[in-house]
């Protein structure tokens, strides 16, 4: 069966139409497809609408559709610290990078220094002579069975070792050596002959038909995809009192996960074992199974449970992981592959560079008449989609009766795009929310009032899917109240607080499609003979506390105190079932639903067996009373009792011992698809802008998020606090640059691409809004990603309020601000 190309299914209608039923099932197993469903639901929405009945579940769900009403919560809603905490603060926790095995060799990769080239020859003879070098693998000596293997969607096809490379950092050879230092020396001893080819390095240049084509596309030039525009009403003829234009640009950003991508691989006979920094164990297993032509049950992925996060870039494998596995097979030794910070920055994925051309028509009474929005994304050296992922807030957040949305994804020989915490939505929020403020000021209306007046609280106007209990109005009003908006907001450049320093206040609203479920959603809850409980889940913890949350959900659903339940920090694909990837902010909700259903299943069994035990005891005592499961309850202390007579009670241990075998609760749940599942938020900030130095200081920052139901408020506050800091880095300091002459990355290191330190970080005040949803678990909606959306427009809008200039090109560096101030004088 040929490999189905996930991105091509979405971008090439003829290709999608050509797939057989078998192909659709294969596609559903593809971790790349699963990641798109979780992280880029807009990309796949059209395909799912048309072909959903061919995908597992056929668009059906197991879900009831009313907002769940639960017993008063005992565990959900409490502040619980991480189960990995002890291991993290001592030396007892092991991250993948802490692992080692006897006989382990280290891998190093020689990579292309040209953005577009043909590899004419490789000479490894000198390198192989270096003591300590054990094996060098490249295109010339790759075992025959792996020569047709490629990752991702074709064009440009990414074989394990390409003859034609399309990016700086493309792998050319891999070395297994006794130490990384020996590997480094060997790398430099390999001689490569390149034929350098012309490269497309500028996004707008690459769209031109004059740019040399590197492969066929649906437009002249190197542009790889134009998404069919979304049109609502009649945007070209619609009239408005005022038309506002806005060009908003964002630079390339990277995750900078502090644990460098690394893996440890070994073979146990013909079975591959890999511990790897990943966000989806079973997805990694699928990826390696495809790349190495192994059945899934011959690949075992292990996660230690301690992971230096991921932020979206490690849901699956890249070529290096396949290389490491093959090297391990050929050498018969465990292989440790530690990416350098350069490799991690350059060869993995990025939030792409965006250009947004926005036109908004508003009337003086504050109503929006039309919106014409075009999003262009630089997806780098691959076939991918990123631009239309910026659409959802433009479609859903405000009532815009006439709307035209365009999206273009441009291929260049540069940083490859991929999901980075909130994917394309920070761009959508940045573009729309700065435009909204421009419009508000153009008609002399309070930006908060303008938004409240135009809020859409019904659902997706184009698909007609409804929101469930949306909390966007609460988020905006609570944030405005918290920051004293009504008394603090003033006209632009109206408040000088010190000579040359001006106060400003700004806000932004956010809507994105992250936070709710996709499939699968599985898990088990096991009650042992002593009444102790095990929650078993394949959910990956990437640092946000997902596994702690799984344990809380299992305890709540079963109806026992938290300290009766354990969950391992680690995940082993050999003995857990898949609950999908920890991406798309879905996991607490989706993996949680697996725990919930399993917990409820176990609970129902407990009640049934308790009733049987009560009846057995009654019979023995010659008492006439008989009870059913409905007459029995659990009270969150681990006790099971008869409702009508609470003195009749059993412990969990007694119930299990009566059954004589463990009670096993199981789940295999499919999420509903009938809701427009959106995350909602609003942020506001006060700033001081120094017009002499061009610096912006955030003096106050408030953030409100609708989470449906707060499972672990302690972790929720962390997600918002941390997301605001992370996103603010992209506002002030973070951008990945390349040299336009050579295509070489200019700043792939932590001094020249600077995440915020403790000295720069804004400290957000967090408001948790709870409007329970009809989907998900306990009405909750996830929020790992949403905090990334509002900071950029919040700050840019506040800067405008302070000094009366718009800087809508990120990052907002001092020179840009000073130039804008100078131009306005």
């Amino acid at each position, binding site marked *: 069966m040929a490999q189905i190309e996930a991105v091509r299914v979405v971008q090439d209608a003829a290709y999608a139409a050509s797939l057989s039923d078998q192909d659709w099932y294969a596609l559903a197993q593809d971790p790349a497809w699963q990641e798109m469903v979780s992280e880029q639901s807009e990309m796949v929405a059209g395909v799912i609408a048309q072909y959903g009945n061919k995908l597992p579940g056929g668009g059906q769900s197991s879900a009831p559709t009313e907002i769940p009403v639960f017993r008063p919560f005992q565990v959900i809603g409490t502040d619980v610290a991480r189960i990995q905490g002890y291991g993290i603060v001592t030396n007892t926790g092991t991250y993948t990078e802490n692992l080692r095995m006897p006989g382990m060799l280290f891998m190093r990769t020689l990579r292309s220094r040209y953005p577009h080239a043909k590899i004419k020859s490789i000479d490894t003879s000198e390198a192989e002579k270096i003591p300590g070098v054990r094996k060098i693998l490249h295109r010339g000596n790759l075992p025959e069975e792996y020569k047709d293997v490629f990752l991702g969607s074709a064009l440009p096809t990414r074989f394990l070792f390409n003859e034609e490379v399309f990016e700086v950092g493309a792998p050319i050879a891999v070395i297994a050596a006794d130490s990384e230092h020996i590997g480094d020396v060997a790398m430099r001893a390999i001689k490569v002959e390149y034929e350098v080819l012309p490269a497309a390095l500028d996004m707008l240049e690459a769209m031109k038909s004059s740019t040399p084509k590197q492969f066929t596309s649906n437009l002249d030039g190197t542009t790889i995809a134009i998404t069919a525009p979304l049109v609502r009403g009649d945007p070209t003829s619609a009239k408005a009192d005022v038309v506002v234009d806005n060009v908003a640009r964002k630079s390339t950003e990277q995750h900078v996960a502090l644990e460098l991508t690394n893996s440890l691989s070994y073979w146990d006979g013909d079975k591959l074992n890999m511990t790897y920094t990943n966000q989806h164990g079973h997805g990694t297993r699928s990826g390696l199974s495809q790349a190495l032509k192994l059945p899934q049950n011959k690949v075992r992925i292990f996660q230690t449970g301690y992971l230096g996060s991921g932020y979206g870039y490690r849901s699956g494998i890249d070529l290096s992981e396949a290389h490491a596995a093959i090297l391990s097979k050929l050498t018969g030794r465990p292989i440790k592959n530690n990416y350098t910070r350069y490799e991690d920055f350059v060869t993995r994925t990025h939030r792409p560079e965006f250009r947004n051309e926005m036109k908004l028509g508003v009337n003086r009474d504050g109503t929006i008449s039309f919106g014409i929005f075009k999003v262009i994304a630089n997806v780098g050296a691959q076939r991918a989609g990123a631009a239309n992922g910026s659409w959802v807030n433009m479609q859903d957040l405000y009532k815009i009766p006439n709307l035209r949305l365009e999206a273009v994804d441009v291929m260049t020989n540069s940083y490859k795009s991929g999901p980075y915490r909130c994917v394309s939505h920070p761009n959508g929020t940045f573009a729309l929310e700065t435009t909204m403020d421009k419009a508000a000021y153009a008609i002399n209306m309070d930006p908060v009032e303008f938004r409240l007046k135009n809020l859409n609280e019904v659902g997706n106007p184009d698909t007609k899917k409804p929101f469930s209990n949306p909390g966007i109005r609460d988020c905006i009003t609570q944030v405005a109240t918290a920051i004293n908006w009504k008394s603090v907001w003033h006209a632009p450049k109206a408040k000088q607080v010190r000579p040359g320093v001006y106060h400003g206040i700004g806000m932004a609203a956010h809507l994105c499609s992250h936070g709710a479920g996709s499939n699968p959603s599985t898990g088990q809850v096991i009650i042992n003979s002593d009444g102790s409980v095990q929650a078993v889940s394949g959910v990956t913890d*990437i640092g946000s506390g997902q596994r702690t949350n799984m344990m809380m959900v299992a305890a709540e659903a079963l109806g026992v105190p938290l300290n009766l339940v354990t969950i391992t920090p680690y995940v082993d694909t050999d003995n857990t079932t898949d609950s999908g990837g920890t991406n798309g902010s879905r996991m607490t909700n989706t993996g949680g639903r697996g725990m919930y259903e399993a917990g409820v299943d176990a609970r129902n069994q407990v009640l049934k067996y308790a009733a049987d035990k009560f009846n057995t005891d009654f019979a023995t005592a010659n008492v006439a009373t008989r009870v059913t499961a409905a007459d029995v309850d659990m009270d969150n202390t681990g006790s099971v009792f008869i409702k009508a007579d609470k003195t009749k009670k059993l412990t969990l241990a007694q119930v299990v011992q009566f059954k004589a075998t463990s009670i096993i609760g199981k789940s295999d749940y499919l999420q509903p698809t009938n809701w427009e599942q959106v995350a909602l938020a609003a942020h506001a900030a006060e700033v001081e802008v120094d017009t002499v130095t061009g610096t912006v200081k955030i003096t106050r920052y408030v953030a409100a998020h609708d989470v449906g139901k707060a499972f672990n408020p302690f972790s929720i506050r962390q997600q918002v*606090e941390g997301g605001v800091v992370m996103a603010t880095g992209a506002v002030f300091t973070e951008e990945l640059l390349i040299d336009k002459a050579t295509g070489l990355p200019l700043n792939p290191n932590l001094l020249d691409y600077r995440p915020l330190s403790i000295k720069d970080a804004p400290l957000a005040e967090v408001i948790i809004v709870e409007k329970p949803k009809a989907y998900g678990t306990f009405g909750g909606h996830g929020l790992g990603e949403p905090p990334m959306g509002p900071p950029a427009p919040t700050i840019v809008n506040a800067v405008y309020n302070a000094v009366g200039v718009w800087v809508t090109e990120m990052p907002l560096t001092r020179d840009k601000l000073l130039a804008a101030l100078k131009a306005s004088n």
Partner: protein
Amino acid sequence: MRRVALTIDNVKYDLVVDNRESLWETMNFQLGLSNSNLGCDRAQCGACAVLVDGKAVNGCTVLSARLGRGQKIATVAGLATGPGVAGLHPIQRAFWLDGGFQCGICTRGFIMSTVQLLGATPKPTTAEIAEGLAGNICRCGEYAKIFTAVNTAAAEMRGEKVTHLASPVVVGTAGVTETAPGAAGVSKEFQFATPMGTIEDYDPFEQALKKRDGILSVSGNERSVTIKWDPAKLDEAKVRAILVDLGHAAR
């Protein structure tokens, strides 16, 4: 290759190291100590911070071959004084229970930098904390709670009583509800206006009281009860109202 003796957390190791080998590589790969994490391998992020003779250094950039003159290397592995949550160093406990990390990869480095900071400045200002920890990057962005953790740890190290923002899960005996140590809350002892008839009357009362939202822990007897509650959900007046509701008003 060079022979070198390293003293790590008061244990002496006799080693042969590659000249190019960093202290982090030696501790992590040769010795398998898992006491330090790597973030960038080039002294730009501080994740690998350990103390050498009390001074925080980047273990990724210190060469093992350059040590070996009796310098005392200190890592998180040497901080705890006993088992369990209670045996942790105040800085370790605060980073955990006050939420000073999310993924935790930077935490071992932050803890050692904090050890250095609080050793020199037992009562640091916010600016002094920021300066002392400026060399450690937290990509998850959890600086807000790092401030909280450092302040709480500093207070505990000065002998003050502290509470933490969250509870760890302490696996208990089946059927027994416990509150884990360190749970944040406000405590008060109440005398019953009318003592209960027998001690047996106390048990169901305690069970019912523990189920009320906001009540963190309960202990007592037929004459008095000590209650700890979550100040975010209850205050003393509300707790007294609960006691009235349960039939045992306090004086």
